[in-house]
């Protein structure tokens, strides 16, 4: 066996290797080891495996590349046309080799060297092995050298860690967006590791694995957002008790949580955990839209079962809700559990109460003396308990962001004591499951159609990479929220050719219904460029507009909104290039089973000129299929200079 491996290191092959300069040193080290070993007559299985390691094809094995987060770089750095790689882990501590972050081969060689040292029984090798147990056992398995590591006896820290987490199964956790914050509409994903169901534990006590940017407590600012979006912060995995996530999302931010139990074997989950142990506190690159939480979670699941190849679905942007679809497509979801937020469950409890009871909830939440009210006393014990429970929860919902006050705490405890004294059990009300986040339309959209302005018609094309507007089918999306990025509209007209009609950098709306219990505000914000046919001269206007107001809901599927608005416009042909506008708008939306109807009216006054603008619009969106719809829009424009009809009919495809 040894002569064979020596042959690999004859002068010819060494000369060839000199060209691959990064590898040379590592190989020479291996070579020295080999010489040292060759004097001994004993040949271990690890040594016998040397020919396989030296051809280095293992270094580009997909599993090796995945475990170390190597991605091919576009630079053609290798003379023989091989791909070159770079790891997305930035911490050098993640690698055994000094060149590890850029060379899968060097890292493989270093790992093999460690295997050899371990084989010799070197004590420092023993310590290092426990840092990288998965890589090492993987390599040993590939080389067919059998078991090299007994975690129980060799790595007590790791053994204790694994035992504590006691991984049996894994769930993907998807906190949906929260009210009045459309930016959270993209969602977030994390994992929960559960122990064996027979352990008697509850998933409240399970561990969660989260990937996020490490912002070191920096306060929210434009710089913070810029850094976060452009890779200025490192990303890291963290492990934390799941109940903390329930508290953050469900109780403080009021986001409903979806829990998807995944079909992994215990062995696969343990494999993933060993990998996480290797990853430890090392820093990754972090980019908001590509190398984000959802992407890293998919990579983890790929480590658990490499054949899934989930990450390959996402060469570009990764939207958390989309990753759910990938798992569902691969039939990886065993069961779905819905955990409503404090707000959702309180609202659904309230909806189950009658008007008298609702009023009692409001009164009792403020003053326990209202339990002497005749209307309360006439209720049976179970209804009384429902009212008290809702009153307590309403209080806590209102007070959650307030500093503790002794008076308030005493009142809240008195409410609980009163509830306790009724001696009945209050079980949660049955909640009709909302549509799951993955069940909605796909997130990119293209529209084609016909556009007619003041009786001159033309072709119309729109592309919007993401995400959801108010007329799109709301199933699976948060109600009353819109978040659109980079929407681009083109118009073709005979004679005029193709013109940019509109470009929206972003167009975000959050219309949250307000009632006597939940006093939400509504707002919108938009930045873009639009083509104005309203005057001569330079037709493009750059604008930034926003508004604030209120929304109200009469039935479960309608929405009325009214906002005061403001706008800044820039156009070179204006008397003053920058013009401020103020105005208002109101509208009504109705969602039927297959379509949405919107009526909208708005008015603007240009502050620096004697100009006004009014728009009256009627829009209808009909969902032909989940990912196709037809949209009709009719707009009446009345301005100081122009009065015209603008109509459009488009066919929309979501993908």
């Amino acid at each position: 066996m040894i002569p064979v491996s020596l042959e690999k290191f004859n002068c010819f092959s060494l000369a060839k290797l000199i060209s691959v300069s990064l590898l040379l040193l590592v190989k020479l080290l291996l070579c020295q080891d080999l010489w040292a070993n060759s004097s001994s007559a004993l040949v271990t299985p690890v040594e016998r495996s040397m020919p396989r390691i030296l051809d280095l094809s293992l270094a580009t094995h997909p599993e090796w590349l995945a475990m170390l987060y190597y991605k091919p770089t576009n630079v053609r750095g290798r003379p023989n046309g091989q791909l070159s790689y770079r790891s997305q882990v930035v911490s050098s501590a993640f690698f055994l080799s000094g060149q590890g972050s850029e060379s899968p081969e060097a890292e493989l060689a270093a790992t093999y060297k460690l295997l050899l040292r371990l084989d010799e029984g070197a004590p420092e090798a023993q310590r290092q092995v426990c840092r990288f147990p998965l890589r090492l056992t993987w390599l040993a398995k590939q080389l067919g050298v059998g078991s090299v590591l007994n975690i129980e006896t060799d790595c007590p820290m790791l053994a204790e860690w694994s035992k504590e987490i006691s991984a049996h199964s894994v769930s993907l956790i998807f906190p949906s967006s929260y009210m009045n914050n459309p930016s959270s509409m993209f969602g977030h994903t994390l994992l929960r590791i559960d122990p064996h169901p027979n352990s008697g534990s509850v998933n409240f006590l399970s561990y969660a694995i989260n990937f996020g940017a490490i912002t070191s407590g920096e306060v929210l600012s434009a710089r913070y957002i810029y850094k976060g979006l452009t890779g200025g912060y490192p990303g890291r995995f963290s492990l934390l008790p799941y109940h903390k996530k329930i508290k953050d999302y469900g109780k403080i931010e009021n986001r409903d949580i979806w829990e998807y139990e995944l079909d992994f074997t215990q062995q696969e989950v343990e494999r993933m955990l060993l990998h996480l142990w290797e990853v430890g506190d090392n820093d990754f690159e972090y980019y908001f839209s590509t190398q984000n939480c959802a992407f890293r979670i998919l990579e983890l699941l790929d480590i658990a079962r490499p054949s899934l190849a989930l990450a390959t679905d996402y060469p570009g942007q990764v939207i958390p809700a989309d990753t759910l679809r990938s798992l569902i497509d691969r039939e990886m979801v065993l069961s779905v559990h819905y955990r409503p937020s404090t707000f959702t469950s309180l609202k659904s409890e309230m909806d189950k109460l009658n008007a008298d009871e609702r009023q009692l909830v409001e009164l009792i939440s403020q003053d326990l003396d209202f339990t002497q009210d005749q209307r309360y006393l006439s209720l049976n014990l179970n209804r009384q308990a429902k009212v008290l429970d809702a009153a307590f929860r309403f209080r806590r919902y209102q007070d959650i962001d307030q500093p503790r006050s002794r008076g308030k705490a005493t009142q809240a405890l008195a409410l609980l004591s009163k509830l306790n004294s009724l001696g009945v059990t209050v079980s949660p009300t049955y909640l009709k499951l909302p549509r799951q986040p993955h069940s909605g339309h796909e997130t990119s959209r293209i529209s084609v159609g016909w556009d007619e302005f003041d009786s001159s018609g033309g072709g119309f094309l729109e592309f919007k990479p993401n995400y959801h507007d108010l007329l799109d089918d709301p199933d699976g999306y948060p109600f009353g929220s819109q978040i659109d990025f980079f929407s681009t509209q083109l118009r073709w007209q005979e004679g005029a050719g193709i013109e940019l009609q509109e470009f929206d950098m972003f167009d975000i709306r959050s219309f949250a219904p307000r009632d006597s219990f939940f006093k939400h505000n509504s707002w919108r914000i938009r930045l873009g460029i639009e083509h104005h046919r309203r005057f001569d001269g330079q037709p493009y206007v750059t604008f930034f507009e926003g508004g604030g107001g209120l929304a109200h809901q009469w039935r479960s599927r309608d929405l009325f909104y009214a906002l005061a608005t403001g706008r800044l416009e820039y156009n070179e042909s204006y008397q003053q290039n920058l013009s401020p506008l103020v105005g208002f708008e109101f509208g009504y939306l109705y969602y039927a089973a297959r379509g949405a109807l919107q009526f909208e009216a708005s008015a603007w006054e240009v502050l620096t000129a004697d100009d006004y603008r009014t728009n009256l619009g009627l829009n209808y969106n009909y969902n032909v299929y989940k990912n196709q719809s037809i949209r009709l829009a009719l707009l009446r424009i009345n301005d100081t200079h122009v009065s015209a009809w603008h109509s459009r009919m488009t066919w929309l495809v979501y993908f």
Partner: protein
Amino acid sequence: MQKRFIRSSLIGVTLLATPMMATAVAPGGPNCGWGNMLFEGSSGLGPHLGASLVNGSTYNSLVGMTLGTNGCSVEGKLTYGGQNLLKSAAFMDDVAHDIAKGEGEALDALMVLIGVETVDRPLFRQVAKANFDKLFPSADVTAEEMLRTLGEVLKSDETLAQYAA
């Protein structure tokens, strides 16, 4: 019994370590103590437009977390055992609410940590409910006091006495 104690202590210490940064604090130090009272406020609300865009987070170490090295020293788990779960601010509120309404996830978690067998859990809920006013005599009751009382309450019940460590 001892195994159960170790298991619950371990979980306890991780619950304890939850809301803290990586600052080493002696057992019972300001961050590891359980002088928290009912209905403490929670920070972190507000329109985190940027926060959720960046998905920024304060950090819990992946590895140190469970070994009790993140925030509280390892001795902490031996000193306080599984009792420290109530350190987490909202947890005691939830337990109080669950006891009053007769069931709930936080109460279940408390029973798991104390090591209450599944068959004894309905009884535990009953006994806790019957002693609500004793466990929470005022809103200023600390987690520590509440647990001490709970221990006494359990001791006085024939079946549950085994869990009053």
